């Protein structure tokens, strides 16, 4: 049995949860078994069957309304034991990465994160995962009885696999130690797309000359429904918040489309965004290293290209709406 933790936010399943179910179904088919999903305080889990879950364990507990690594790991671990799970599928979200090591110790299970494709073999259990911040891959065998894999974002995609899923309530035994940590406040922008969830990321670099010039970047992001990001020097100089810094020491990006404007493409930056599928660079220096990493490039002045791009994209969006 393959257990998949299907994450939700404010009761709504996240897209990565559906990707995780798709992936779990892929492993289940390889191993000739089925998928059980565990969802915590999700309002509607009916979508999970569509991606291959045969059974959904629904946990409802007001104490779990806010994420808590220890308690969530206990819920998933107890679900895994009661189902006799051999493989547990997690994602690469901040919360999955938080709880994975705790879960791994609880279940004496080997854990491999950032997995990019289905196991090359399930006995021995071998997976390919990205290492050296996307500069290489490793093929790693998990040698424990129970295995935990964290799939990289956008590495498997959604695969529909209509399955009739049964739903069961599941209650975990949680004790006081599970709640040694108290969430005092959550500060989350609700009106903008986050880098973690974004399909498209629009990123600006030093070539934009100053924070006052970000209006056109935000406009472009708005038109595309994209998240805004920036290079390390831009965040170091305080032009943009640290939370927008993408690259090796910043946030990793694995979007469908990454548009780099006025970013030369230092090796650390490229490593952090390398998992994106399609990369576009706009830069006035044709020798900028980013051109070697990009799929599409435009050499020229961002202050001319971006406003024109915004205008034409608006027209394009209006026609294709």
């Amino acid at each position: 049995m393959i257990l998949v933790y299907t994450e939700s936010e404010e009761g709504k399943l996240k897209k990565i949860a559906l990707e995780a179910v798709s992936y779990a179904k892929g492993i289940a088919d390889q191993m000739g078994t089925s998928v059980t999903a565990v969802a915590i305080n999700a309002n509607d889990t009916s979508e999970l069957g569509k991606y291959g879950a045969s059974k959904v364990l629904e946990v409802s507990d007001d104490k779990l309304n806010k994420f808590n690594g220890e308690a969530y790991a206990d819920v998933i671990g107890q679900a895994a034991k009661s189902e006799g799970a051999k493989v547990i599928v997690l994602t690469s979200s901040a919360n999955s990465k938080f709880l994975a090591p705790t879960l791994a110790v609880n279940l004496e299970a080997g854990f491999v994160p950032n997995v990019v494709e289905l196991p090359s073999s399930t006995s021995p259990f071998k997976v390919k995962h990205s290492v050296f911040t996307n500069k290489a891959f490793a093929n790693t065998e998990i040698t424990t009885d129970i295995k935990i894999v964290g799939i990289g974002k956008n590495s498997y995609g959604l695969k529909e696999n209509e399955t009739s899923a049964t739903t069961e309530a599941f209650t975990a035994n949680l004790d006081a130690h599970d709640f040694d940590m108290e969430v005092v406040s959550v500060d989350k922008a609700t009106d903008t797309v986050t880098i973690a969830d974004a399909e498209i990321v629009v990123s600006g670099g030093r070539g934009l000359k100053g924070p006052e010039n970000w209006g056109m970047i935000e406009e472009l992001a708005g038109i595309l429904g994209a998240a805004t990001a920036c290079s390390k020097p831009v965040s170091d100089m305080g032009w943009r918040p640290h939370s927008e810094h993408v690259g090796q020491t910043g946030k990793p990006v694995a979007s469908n489309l990454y548009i780099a404007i006025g970013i030369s493409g230092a090796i650390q930056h490229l490593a952090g965004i390398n998992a994106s599928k399609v990369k576009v660079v706009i830069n006035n220096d044709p020798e900028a290293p980013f051109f070697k990493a990009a799929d599409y490039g435009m050499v020229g002045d961002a202050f001319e290209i971006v406003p024109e791009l915004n205008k034409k994209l608006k027209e394009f969006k209006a026609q294709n709406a």
Partner: protein
Amino acid sequence: MKILVCISHVPDTTSKINFTDGDTKFDTNGVQFVINPNDEFGLTRAMWFKEKQGATVHVVNVGGPETEPTLRKALAIGADEAIRINTAATDGFSVAKQLANVAKEGGYDLVIGGRESIDYNGGMVPGMVAKLIGANFVNTCIHLEVDGDKATAIREIDGGKETLKTSLPLVIGGQKGLVEESDLRIPNMRGIMQARTKPLNVKEPVDANTETSTVSFEKPAPKGAVKLVDSVDELINLLHNEAKAI
């Protein structure tokens, strides 16, 4: 307060990544090693606790003698003592077991690790150490304050941040934000001289099983050449019809 900072010895961020021995080993030839950047933010925050709150700071690494210059650098930055656990760092779990043993024996109140190492990107060691020693754990920690046995931490979440109250003993997976880039310290001559005489204790490993084993490495397939476009119209057309990205 006794602080243990776990230091991973990693290739510099500009390193070219190559493999040897039939793609089974990382090629260290010509590679410069540094303190893992995420750990360095934590070490620098530990220096703040030392200077403002009188904490003692020890650093620890799991690795062979070749990792000692990295520990000496941490001492030159200001750590009081270094420990090297004399065994190769193989998988995340076995490294966590070694560190947990040191953390437990030393009675540390706060164990600081990095969100992930920039080489194997496992991101599991701090969380495993916390579970193994029964401490609280905060991952992707971007701010930390300690008052007596109470701690307030801010962690980065997808799309925002979250403030947490917890208590010691505590383990964090730290990153940039614990201190700013501009707060990082370059060891000065005095620090380097002092580091030579500070204790660097070599400890033999405890028994620890591994749970994963890397069989081989590979590099991404070479990328095709960039397609240069001359006009915005052409770019939109290619992104829509060819790349299907918009």
